């Protein structure tokens, strides 16, 4: 389960990268890229609280 959640999280970030590169190459419009960025953000924040460690380093 954890692996699946991590996969979704990083797939969200990868999708954002992919969309930005597509804009750079002229293969995607800016408006569509903005939606991809929002979708990637939703994927990240929708999954990361369930797998990232919630323990803080004591010094900070």
């Amino acid at each position, binding site marked *: 389960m954890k692996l699946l959640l991590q996969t979704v999280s990083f797939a969200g970030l990868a999708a954002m*990268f992919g969309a930005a590169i597509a804009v750079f190459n002229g293969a995607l419009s800016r408006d569509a890229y903005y939606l991809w960025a929002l979708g990637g953000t939703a994927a990240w924040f929708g999954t990361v609280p369930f797998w990232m460690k919630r323990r803080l380093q004591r010094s900070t």
Partner: protein
Amino acid sequence: MNPDPAPTSLVQRLDALYEYEREPVTEGNLHGWKIFWATFAGEHIAGTEFVLGPLFVLHGATATDVFAGLAIGNLLAVLSWALLCAPVAVKTRLTIFWQIRQVGGPWLTFLYSSLFAVFLCLLAGSMINVSVTAITLPFHIPNPGPGALFPSWSWVLLAAGVGALISVLAVMGFEGMAIFSKMCAPWMVTIFFVAAIATLPSLGCRSLHDFWRVANEKIWTGTPAPGFSHYHFWHIVGFAWLCNITQHVGMADLTILRYARKWQMGFTSSAGMYLGHFCAWIASGILCAAAVGDKSPGPIAFLGAGWAGALCVVIAGWNVASPTLYRAGLALQIVTPGWKRWKVTLLIGVAIILCACIPALLANLDRVVGYNGLFFLPLGAFIFIDYWVLPKLGLQRSYAGRRGLPWSWPAAFAWGGALAFSFFAYGKDNYAWLQRLVAGHLPAWAEAYRPDLFYLVLPEWIVAIALYLLFSLLQQKSSRA
């Protein structure tokens, strides 16, 4: 009978506040490489990056100045962490508070804490300002320009709302905010990168081969914006080094690095420097160059990544403002006897809302950070010399601490002397009243020495250690006589 009476004097309150940090970190609590890579990477990709990167564009640096200057300046910062701060941290395993307490005595520690709280209020205020520049977007409220004296009332209301919310969060759930901040770090790095990549075509960059031409012609053109001074290579080197100088040369990160197994872990600071203070500054510079009209953090991030970019600015500002407010509260708690923690934090909340409403703070954030760095740098120099050099000269380490002195006059006068040196060296060419005062009275070499604020790191460090060594020698020799 109460066996543990409440502390009454200022010094007792100060000690009680940091009581749990008095002992050196034990072997079982040390951490490995991974946590330091993550800590540094997360800490140095934040709201300030949306402000500092664009300032190099507005100050007219060239592409070579920025790329080479940041590479070298950040290398100096990493070396300072690894060679100055980390070795002392792993040898002593004490916080900056207890190091200053030992070297400077309780009164200097009190002064350090109080002044640091003032700087933290300015920093937290500027981060609320950063967040609000994005929150204004859906409401179509204009952000104040860099030359504006005061924002509109609607903008002030938003800032007050955000400041109040952050203050309440800091009071109620600081740990929750810190965990949230940790979760945001990889996403924020991604936003910086993708925003820059997606924005380059609007500047005419369609392939990697175009990048350097576009960087020189459209982004870092070498021409400053109206009202901004001209930055060159050494400004960039100096600023990149000075930016976090309180943490490395100033030794504030002893508090973090005391948990490191080896001093070499100081090199993990390179994650923060080269991801945050190299890549993120360059990315935000690209966004600034592409923006037409409002070049505030919110609008430029929106241009780069849409609402995800705007959200990144809000979170980046909050992530810095919340712990900063918490730390400022901790520092000020000692001067407000009997006050509840929440009352101190909310008082600081009001102070940072007022700071957030000063547009000049963002426009001059590099200078504010620079003044802060130069102000606290000498104390780190004293800790370094106290640990490594004094024993080699036959002098005692931590003299004030061992003797129970309320303050160390060598540290106090060397701190004042080093600050006076920097103030005079910079001020004689930049403050009109000082210019008039010294006109015609300076020797030729002093007239010819015209350092910018960002060039003063090394000279001030040398003056600080020279004075501290001299005064320590006088103090300890006279006490033996």
